[in-house]
C-alpha cells in the first residue's frame, strides 16, 4: 500500500497522562484523512509529534516509506509537511505576501526582498487552488476565513505535500466552512494529502476519505468514511465502555431562576459567538449546555456572569434584567460560578487556600469588618470548608494554592461557590482534568445542590458527564441552541449528532 505518512505505535506521555498510547496513523497518498476524537483525546498531541514539536517516547514515523526523525518543525517542512495551526500564526500588520514568504524570502539586487515576484507567485498559487486571496491585503483587514487561506497558501508556497489542518472549522462561518471543504478537495486533486482534525462528523462525511478515531489517547480504529454512518463514527468516538451511573433521583423543577432572551455576544474577534440564544433554567434542575468546544458556550457563561459585555438581548435573573449589573452585584444577587479556567479566573495561585476561599466575599462580615480583614473568622471559615469538602493540602488553610493538586484546587473553588449557597450555580467544565474520584465527588455535590432547590447550569464537553449529571440537555452549536433534550430520553448518539451539527431538535 502507498502511505505517505505512517506513525507507528506512537506513545507520548505528559506528566500524569498518556496523551498518545500506542497510536498508529497511516495516511494514504492523495487522501483526506480525518482524525476524530473528543476533547483531550490526543489528536493535537499526535500531530505535534508528526510536526516535530514533541518527541514521542515510543514509536516511529515513516514519511513516504522512509523512517524519519522529526527533531523540529524545520525537518517536517523539509519533508513537505505543513500545518495549519488552530491558532493562526500570522503577523497582523503584515501583508498576505509578507506573511507567506517569511523565512523563505526571494531576493533581488542589493539584498532586497523581491516582493513583486513573491506576490505574483502567491497570486498564481492562489489562482491555481481557487483561493482568491489578495496578496497585498493586510492580515488585520481580512476575515478569519481569508486568514486561514493565507495559512494554507503558506504551506503551499513551501511546496508542502502533506497538509495538517488542526480543527480548521472551529472559527469559521458556515459559508467559509463550505468554501474550505471545496479548497481541500481541490488540493487533493492536485496530489496533496491532508490530515484533518475535527470533532464534526458532518465535515468528515463531506470531505474525508478515511477516518481514524482516538479516544482517551488510544487508537480505536480507522474506517472508510463512505462505508460508515455518522452514528457509527460517533459511537467510535465516544465509546461504550464507560459510565458508572451517578446516583440521582428525579428532578423537581420549580420557578424559572434564569431566563435568557435573544442573547447575542461577540467573541474576541468581534464575531457573533452567541446568536439569538434563548434558554431557561429552573430551580431544582441541572441544565447542561452540551457542545463541542468553541461553539459559544464560554461566551454565554461569561455573559451571564458579567465577565463579558453582551451585544443585545436580555438576561433575566429571578425576573430582573441583570444586563447592567456589575460582576460583584451578580454574585451578591445569588449567582455562583465555577469558572472554566480555574487557573486564569478561579484562583489566585499565590494566595493561600483560606485567602482563596474568601475571594467572593472577602468584603463582607464576618471576614471583613469596616474594611479590616478578620483573620480569625477567615481561618474558622476555611477550616470548616476544608472539613466539609475534604480539600486536601500540605498545610491546610495556609497552603499556597499553587502547590495543590488540580483536583483539590477545583474542590476549593467548588467549596467556595457552593457554600455561598447561590440560587444559580454555574459550573463550567467542573471536572476537566480531574481523576475519577474527584469527578464523582463533584457530581454528587452538584446533585445535592439541585436537590436543595438550586438551579444548576452545567457546561460540559464530556459526554458521560452530560448524560449522567444533567436533567435537561441544551445542545449548543455555533452559538445557537439546536435542541433541548431530556437526559433520560436521549443517548450519546443523538447528542453527538446534534453537537456536530448533523441534527436539530426541539428547542
Amino acid at each position, binding site marked *: 500500500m502507498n502511505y505517505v505518512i505512517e506513525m507507528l505505535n506512537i506513545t507520548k506521555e505528559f506528566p500524569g497522562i498518556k496523551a498518545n498510547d500506542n497510536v498508529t496513523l497511516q495516511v494514504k497518498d492523495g487522501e483526506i484523512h480525518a482524525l476524530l476524537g473528543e476533547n483531550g483525546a490526543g489528536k493535537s498531541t499526535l500531530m505535534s509529534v508528526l510536526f516535530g514539536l514533541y518527541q514521542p517516547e515510543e514509536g516511529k514515523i515513516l514519511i513516504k516509506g522512509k523512517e524519519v526523525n522529526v527533531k523540529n518543525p524545520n525537518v517536517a517542512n523539509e519533508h513537505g509537511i505543513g500545518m495549519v495551526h488552530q491558532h493562526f500564526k500570522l*503577523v497582523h500588520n503584515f501583508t498576505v505576501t509578507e506573511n507567506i514568504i517569511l523565512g523563505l524570502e526571494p531576493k533581488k539586487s542589493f539584498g532586497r526582498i523581491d516582493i513583486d515576484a513573491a506576490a505574483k507567485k502567491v497570486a498564481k498559487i492562489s489562482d491555481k487552488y481557487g483561493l482568491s486571496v489578495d496578496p497585498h491585503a493586510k492580515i488585520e483587514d481580512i476575515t478569519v476565513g481569508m486568514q486561514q487561506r493565507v495559512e494554507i497558501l*503558506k504551506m503551499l508556497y513551501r511546496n508542502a505535500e502533506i497538509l495538517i489542518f488542526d480543527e480548521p472549522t472551529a472559527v469559521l462561518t458556515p459559508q467559509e466552512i463550505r468554501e474550505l471543504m471545496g479548497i481541500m478537495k481541490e488540493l487533493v486533486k492536485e496530489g496533496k494529502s491532508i490530515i484533518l482534525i475535527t470533532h464534526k462528523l458532518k465535515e468528515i462525511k463531506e470531505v474525508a476519505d478515511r477516518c481514524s478515531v482516538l479516544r482517551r489517547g488510544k487508537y480505536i480504529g480507522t474506517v472508510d468514511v463512505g462505508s460508515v454512518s455518522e452514528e457509527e463514527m460517533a459511537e467510535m468516538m465516544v465509546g461504550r465502555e464507560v459510565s458508572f451511573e451517578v446516583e440521582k433521583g428525579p428532578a423537581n423543577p420549580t420557578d424559572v431562576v434564569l431566563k435568557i432572551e435573544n442573547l447575542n455576544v461577540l467573541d474576541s474577534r468581534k464575531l457573533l459567538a452567541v446568536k439569538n440564544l434563548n434558554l431557561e433554567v429552573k430551580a431544582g434542575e441541572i441544565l447542561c449546555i452540551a457542545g463541542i468546544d468553541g461553539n459559544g458556550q464560554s461566551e454565554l457563561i461569561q455573559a451571564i456572569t458579567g465577565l463579558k459585555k453582551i451585544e443585545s438581548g436580555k438576561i433575566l435573573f429571578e425576573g430582573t434584567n441583570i444586563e447592567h449589573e456589575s460582576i460583584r452585584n451578580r454574585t451578591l444577587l445569588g449567582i455562583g460560578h465555577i469558572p472554566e479556567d480555574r487557573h486564569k479566573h478561579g484562583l489566585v495561585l499565590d494566595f493561600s487556600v483560606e485567602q482563596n476561599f474568601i475571594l467572593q466575599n472577602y468584603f463582607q462580615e464576618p471576614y471583613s469588618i469596616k474594611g479590616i480583614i478578620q483573620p480569625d473568622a477567615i481561618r474558622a471559615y476555611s477550616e470548616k470548608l476544608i472539613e466539609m469538602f475534604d480539600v486536601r493540602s500540605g498545610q491546610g488553610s495556609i497552603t499556597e494554592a499553587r502547590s495543590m493538586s488540580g483536583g483539590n484546587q477545583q474542590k476549593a473553588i467548588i467549596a467556595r461557590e457552593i457554600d455561598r449557597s447561590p440560587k444559580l450555580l454555574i459550573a463550567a467544565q467542573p471536572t476537566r482534568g480531574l481523576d475519577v474520584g474527584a469527578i464523582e465527588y463533584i457530581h454528587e455535590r452538584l446533585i445535592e445542590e439541585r436537590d436543595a432547590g438550586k438551579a444548576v447550569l452545567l457546561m460540559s464537553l464530556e459526554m458521560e458527564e452530560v448524560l449522567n449529571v444533567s436533567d435537561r440537555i441544551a445542545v449548543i452549536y455555533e452559538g445557537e441552541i439546536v435542541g433541548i433534550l431530556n437526559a433520560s430520553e436521549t443517548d450519546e448518539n443523538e447528542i453527538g449528532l446534534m453537537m456536530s451539527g448533523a441534527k436539530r431538535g426541539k428547542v
Partner: protein
Amino acid sequence: MEVIYSMMTLTLIFSTPIIITAIGGMFSERSGVVNVALEGIMMIGGFTAATSIVFLEKSTSFAPWIALLFGLIAGVLISLVHAYISINLGAEQVISGTAINLLAGGLTVYLSQVIFHQQRTQSFETGFIKTTYPGLSKIPIIGRIFFENIYPTVYIALIIVIASWYVLYKTPFGLRLRATGEHPQAVDSVGISVYKMRYIGVLLSGALGGLGGAIMVLTFDTQYTIGSIHGVGFIALASLIFGKWKPAGVLGASLFFGFSQILSVYSTDFAFLAKFPQEFFKILPYLLTIVALLIFSGSSVGPKAAGEPYDKGQR
C-alpha cells in the same frame, strides 16, 4: 535668514546622538525586547570613546574614528548583558534596563578613577571638528544647512536612518525582525530562531547606542564626565515612541526634540519665545511623549510582543 540656517545646522548636530541611539532602540524593540537602557549604553559608549581617544590621538589622525568604533563595541558588550537577561532568562526587561543605566554611571566613573585617577576621563584635544565643505556649502539653502560648520557624524546619523529604513523594510532580515517583535510564535513556526533575532536586535541597539554616546562626547565635549550624557538616552527613548518605532518617524521626532532645545537657546532672539522659560523647552519632549502615548493608545502602534519574554511552549 542667517539665523535660520544656523539653527538648522545646530539642530542637525544636536539631534545626531538622539537619532542614532533612538534608531538603535528601534531595532531592539522591533525584535520584541524593550530597552530602557539606552542612557546607560550611551554612557558606556561615550566613556569608551573618550578613553580610547586619549590614548590614540597622539599616534593617529584617525583617532576619532577608531574611538567611535570602540564606543560602538563597548555598547554591544554592555547590551549583551541586557540580551542575556531578557532573552535567555526571561527577566522583566525594564528591571534589567534600569540596572544597566545605574551600572553605567558607576562603572564609567569607577574606571575613570582606575585609569585616569580622576572622576572623569582626561581631556582630549582632537575629537571631531566642525567642517565647512567649500564646494558643497555654496549650494543654495542645502549647502548652508548641511555643509557649513557641521560635524561629519551628522551624515552618519542620516545614513543610519536611511540604512535602517532599507534594512527594516526592504530586506529579509528586516521582515523577520519586525515579525519577531509582533508575533514571535509565527516566526518560530517558519523555522527562524526567535532568540537569534532578538539577540541581533538588542546588540544592534547596543552598537548604535554606544555610537550615539561616543559621538555625543567626541562632538560636544572635551572629556567624558558623569554628566556627559545627561538624559539624552531617555530623550532617544522618547523619540522612539514619538516616532512610532519607524525610522522616518524617529528621525522626525529626534529632529523635533533637537529643534526644541535649539529654540530654547535662541529663544532670547525671538520675541514670541522669550516669554517661555528655559524649563519649558526642557519639559517639551517629555510632555509630548506622554501626549503621544495617549493619542496612540487607541490604535495599536509599537511592536505587539515587546516586553514579553518568548516562551516556546506558549501559543
